[in-house]
């Protein structure tokens, strides 16, 4: 049987990841920071009452949050692993 791999959610890592994606999309730094802060805040709230979630669910929730603020960033986040 395949071993289950679990990670601890880190809001700092999430923020860093969003900022990296935003930079590669040439989104102005101040706006990127605002987006990252808002998304991290909402995800922290969403995750608070959950003990275990899948990576896929977390990604979907992040994309949902990003889509409202910056659709291109949401696209980059969602499709990053689907380029090749």
């Amino acid at each position, binding site marked *: 049987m395949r071993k289950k791999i679990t990670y601890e959610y880190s809001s700092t890592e999430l923020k860093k990841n969003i*900022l990296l994606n*935003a930079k*590669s999309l040439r989104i102005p730094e101040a706006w990127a920071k605002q987006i990252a802060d808002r998304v991290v805040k909402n995800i922290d709230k969403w995750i608070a009452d959950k003990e275990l979630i899948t990576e896929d669910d977390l990604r979907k929730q992040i994309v949902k949050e990003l889509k409202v603020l910056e659709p291109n960033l949401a696209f980059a986040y969602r499709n*990053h692993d689907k380029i*090749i």
Partner: protein
Amino acid sequence: MSDIVCVATILLAGLAQASLQLGLGGLILLYHNSLGKHRRRRTNYLARNYILGTAAITFLVVAAFCFLIGNFFNGALTTEWLVIALGALGACAIVMWLLYYRRGKGSTELWLPKSITRFIRKKARQTNDGVEAFSLGLLSSFAEMPISIALFFVAGNAILNLNAAWQVVGVLAYTLITILPMVVLQFRIHAGRTAVEAQQWRLRNKAFLRIISGSSFLTLALFVAAFWIVK
């Protein structure tokens, strides 16, 4: 064989290889990851090295195939070998039409072993210097070898039929054609586009790219049949 037929074969084989997507996908990944970490100048330097890596391996492999054909086939493939190459090109055309892209909306994932694509993704994320980018270019071109091997055979055979003075030019021309899509992407990103826009274009035109790839393989197969086998 006339020079025009040889040049046309080299052009067609080059175009068929240029329509393969792993090299371009790897470059988009490299751009996306690098632009998030480095300055634009550094990213352009890495992209240049990646393209150079792809060009170097293509040049060397085509030259190696020329050497192989020159030494083991007395400078020209026999009709039997050309028929085998023709069959391989036809099979590749079917693979490109039906299997090359994995099924799934919103994805341009390719029909390659997952371990290879995972490795390329990981390397594209970690690439920080020129040598790494160069090797990533080598690797991505090498990973598509099972599909491009028939092209190398046909192109190598056509190159050896040119005058000795033009053979190096033939190998160079083939290499330049294969890296053309990557050079165009580099210019587009230089002009202010982003890697995400390039990926969105690939997604929108996935069906078109599939048809172009398959058709170019089939066109080359028909060309080989008409001008090299039937004559």
